[in-house]
């Protein structure tokens, strides 16, 4: 089982394509949509978790890219500045996906970006302001 949190940015011409249905039907993948928006000038943005067999997953991504969709790993959009992070653990109170968790018994705070849904709850909750959004905020708001 392979699973990634992705952001898809689609150009105007594919907004009406049933891409998610095709991913399920043709590539046997399952999904969980976390955010989906279509903007006035008709480009769209979707944040979703895509899971399935790795080979199917890779084919699915190829299909998306073939449509001109900009596919990005969300993990790359939320970053932790490790110079600022002082390993307290406060962020684990709010992280809904377990991307931020504590490794015991060392009590080390780990950020596993493959589990991050880019919900941004940690960004405000981190007292050190160590969690950064590289997301295109304008597109999201």
């Amino acid at each position, binding site marked *: 089982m392979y699973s990634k949190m992705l952001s898809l940015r689609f150009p105007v011409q594919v907004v009406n394509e049933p891409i998610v249905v095709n991913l399920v039907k043709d590539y046997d993948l399952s999904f969980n949509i976390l955010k989906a928006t279509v903007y006035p000038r008709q480009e769209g943005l979707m944040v979703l978790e895509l899971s399935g067999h790795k080979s199917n997953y890779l084919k699915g991504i190829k299909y998306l890219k073939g449509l001109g969709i900009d596919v990005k790993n969300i993990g790359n959009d939320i970053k932790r500045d490790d110079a*600022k992070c*002082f*390993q*307290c*653990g*406060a962020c*684990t*109170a*709010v992280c809904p996906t377990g991307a931020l968790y*504590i490794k*015991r*018994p*060392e*009590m*080390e*705070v780990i950020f596993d970006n493959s589990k991050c849904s880019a919900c941004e709850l940690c960004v*405000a*909750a981190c*007292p*050190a*302001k160590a969690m950064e959004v590289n997301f295109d905020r304008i597109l999201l708001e």
Partner: protein
Amino acid sequence: MAIKKTTRTIEEINKKIRSGKAVVVRADEMTEIVKQRGAGAAAAEIDVVTTGTFSPMCSSGAFINFGHTKPALRASKVWFNNVPAYGGIAAVDAYIGATEVAEDDPLNGVYPGQFKYGGGHVIHDLIAGKKVTLRATSYGTDCYPRKEYEKKITLSELPYATMLNPRNAYQNYNCAINLTAKTIYTYMGVLKPKAGNANYATAGCVSPLFNDPYYLTLGMGTRIFLGGAQGYIIGPGTQHNPNAERAKNGTPLSGAGTLMVMGDMKQMDPKWIAGVSMLGYGCSINIGLGVPIPILNEDMARFTGVADEDIFTRVVDYGNDYPNGESKPLAMVSYAQLKSGMIKFDGRDIPTVPLSSYVRAVEVAEILKTWIKKGGFLLTEPQVMLPTAKKS
């Protein structure tokens, strides 16, 4: 418990430190040593146990003298990067408090407020060598005619900058939960409704005052690790309360002891002094602080051997009880339970969340251990002890 015959003095320990022969271990290592070999054997072998903490410590700040200007100024209002400092002291002296928020901050106007920049951040920026904008105003006098002054300053240009923290290193602290139906934003972090999480704020067995619960070896003049440099305990901190209820091993079950400390900011390392923003609450500062505990006798070996399973704190509701000034204990939990990631409360498993960095606390204790082992850090004889309680 009778006081055992002293096995060594601070002077004897310092002799060993100077010759590079002192046996020094961290408090977490001492816990294992005492568990395995007993306090007697540990006392015979070990000279010093080092402790550490890296936690938000609101009651902190710095005295800054920014030097006389031409023409001369008697500052009555002072700001650093737009964060107000207290100017009601001599002409060019000011005290910048860690929790003071920048003047243009929306505070909780947009709830929960972000509190992006405050006194703790100013202190961190100065220690990091960054330029900080100093602004001062005055009503003007015959001897100090100037009414306004603004300048970009750096720590190295300041004639004097001393960190002086009225209350640090709280001996123990509440474990906070929220029994209301909505999320709350507190100085104990984000607390989800219906006891969704339990937040706690000390490093447990490695935290300084758990290792000398009756303050038998420390007091005014004790040299410590403060912000990456050498600093000093200068007395009991505000709210120091030695008479809090204690467990049999001497560790208090609630707040109890605190330290007032000072240190030269110019020697400090920005890694160990960080400005913090508590969502919906305000600004504060994280301070790295470590105290060396001399193992003068078997009692001190036993005290420093304390384990997380033997240190307890109270679970307090920050939803209703605490804001109403009635922080009654709803349950007692050990630091071993807190560190395990779950506590049992009301028959449910509740995830625990630390606010104090255990990783960094151990790192402080490790640095202090290295300093002492290498002979660069001598212990000092406290000149006045802290008020304490009778041992039970």
